[in-house]
């Protein structure tokens, strides 16, 4: 999603730009908001956790229940991000490369999860997959429980993260050079060879970016999961849900410690995937 790289503007403009007014005012508004709303709150969170001391922090953040919650969060988010990336690649490919009636409607529907409140998604998913629900009446007798289970968590996380996986890959498929693919086919490559050797290397960085965004979104998600998971400690309790239940017990220290671990997980994962992606871009060039 980071489409604006600061280095992409030539220096020539930079010098001319100083005649424009408004630097002071825009800098004041921007720094007030960023410092006041982002930097200070997160710094306070981290300092508060640091004030517990190493032993206190571990005692608060590394309880068996918290460890189980990290495992459920990570496992469900990774699974959901992988599924979203694969389904996202499929949907993006079909939207760009194939013509069929209803293509534009399908394209618009992809954005529904971005606009639909996650609480609504969670509510609806839980009613769809319970025993009497539209889908549950077929799936539950088959032993597939989509509500109050880990599968349910994965399902809603796929829902909330799917648009990210699709929208990042779609413009890259649009920009692919079809001549290269035709050349590969003319030179005797099979369809699958062309896809694996020519198409995939070009879109892989975008797929990885989509995966990272989907993962970041899934790790922090709360609204939809709280409806469908049943929130059973050690089984279906994700880390954000545990933070909230600690808060409701006024156990601020524990909530803060778990929050810092969660923050660390999502930020470090974003860094790892960013590095990976830069490498992929370099290899593709």
């Amino acid at each position, binding site marked *: 999603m980071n489409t604006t790289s600061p280095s992409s503007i030539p220096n020539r403009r930079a010098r001319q730009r100083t005649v*424009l007014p408004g630097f002071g005012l825009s800098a004041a508004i921007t720094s007030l908001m960023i410092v006041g709303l982002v930097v200070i709150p997160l710094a306070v969170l981290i300092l508060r956790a640091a004030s517990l001391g190493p032993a206190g922090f571990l005692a608060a953040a590394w309880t068996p229940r918290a460890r189980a919650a990290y495992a459920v969060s990570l496992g469900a988010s990774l699974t959901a991000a992988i599924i979203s990336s694969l389904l996202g690649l499929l949907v993006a490919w079909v939207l760009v490369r194939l013509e*069929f009636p209803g293509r534009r409607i399908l394209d618009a529907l992809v954005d529904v999860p971005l606009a*639909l409140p996650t609480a609504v998604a969670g509510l609806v998913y839980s009613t769809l997959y319970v025993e009497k629900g539209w889908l549950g009446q077929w799936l539950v007798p088959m032993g597939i429980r989509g509500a109050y289970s880990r599968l349910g968590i994965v399902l809603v996380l796929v829902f909330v993260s799917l648009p990210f996986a699709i929208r990042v890959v779609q413009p890259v498929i649009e920009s692919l050079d079809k001549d290269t693919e035709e050349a590969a086919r003319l030179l005797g490559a099979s369809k699958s060879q062309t896809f694996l050797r020519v198409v995939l290397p070009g879109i892989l960085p975008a797929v990885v970016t989509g995966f990272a965004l989907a993962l970041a979104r899934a790790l922090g998600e709360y609204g939809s999961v709280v409806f469908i998971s049943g929130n059973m400690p050690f089984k279906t309790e994700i880390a954000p849900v545990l933070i909230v239940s600690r808060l409701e017990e006024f156990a601020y220290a524990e909530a803060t410690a778990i929050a810092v671990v969660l*923050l660390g997980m999502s930020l470090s994962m974003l860094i790892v995937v960013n590095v990976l992606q830069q490498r992929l871009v370099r290899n593709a060039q």
Partner: protein
Amino acid sequence: MTSKPRDAATASSPLGLLLIAGAVATVGLLIVAPLASVFVDAFSNGPRAWWEALAHDPDTRHAIWLSLTVAPVAVIVNTVFGVAAAWLVARFRFPGRSLLVSLFDVPFSVSPVVAGLALVLIFGRQGLLGPTLAWLAVKVIFAWPGLVLATTFVTLPLVVRELIPVMEAIGPEEEMAAVSLGANGWQVFWRVTLPNIRWALLHGIVLANARAMGEFGAVYVVSGHIAGATDTMPLRVEKLFQEYRTPASMAVASVLAALALLTLVAKVFIERQLETESKELEAARVPGADTDPSTGGLGK
């Protein structure tokens, strides 16, 4: 996103049909079925029951009112911030600029629950500013200001992200011309910048509004979840569900879902305008002039 497919032929091949079926099944099962079932469930007892669930429950009425007062304030704050931040980043160079741009994205990667907790640690009773706020008799957490702060945090990147690429693509030339002709800063903004970025700005506002109306996690933490006082519409959906009043919960959910559909229609319309404008921008570029269109107008 709406350009014509260049490969219509493969659609009729068995593989093409299989891929289309897969994509339609994915979107149908994951997105359309849940969306349709909101409306079916909400109206299962007839429109009268739907209306009564919404209008005859004072707590639900209050939640609707609260959402309608919290979301616009957060959106207005983020519109002002978004325009200022985009102007700063797209029109000036200064040390720390790229760090600032990456800070814009932080709210995307922080769990809303964590964001809410951070606000509680500052403004809550046990928080950093707790004693001061108590002395001033100002309530932030478990009250309206906290809801606005939390909502503003989660929607922070949405407007600025839409504006930066558009302002960078347009370039500062028109604005500098206006300045050299004697226009002052506000004149430049209202007469030159704003008309150029209006569709991108609207796009950001529509997205921010949808997110603001629907935010759950961050708002849940700072609200204290007090029915009839700090419950917004999404929180009301959850509370009704917990009270085993699923039909009423679905009624509130259906209003939010209708709003989401409205957002999508607006989004499609605005994206069409944006597409036309970016084509006009490209056509207006003189070939061989200082900006090379093949690099997207971003220079050498």
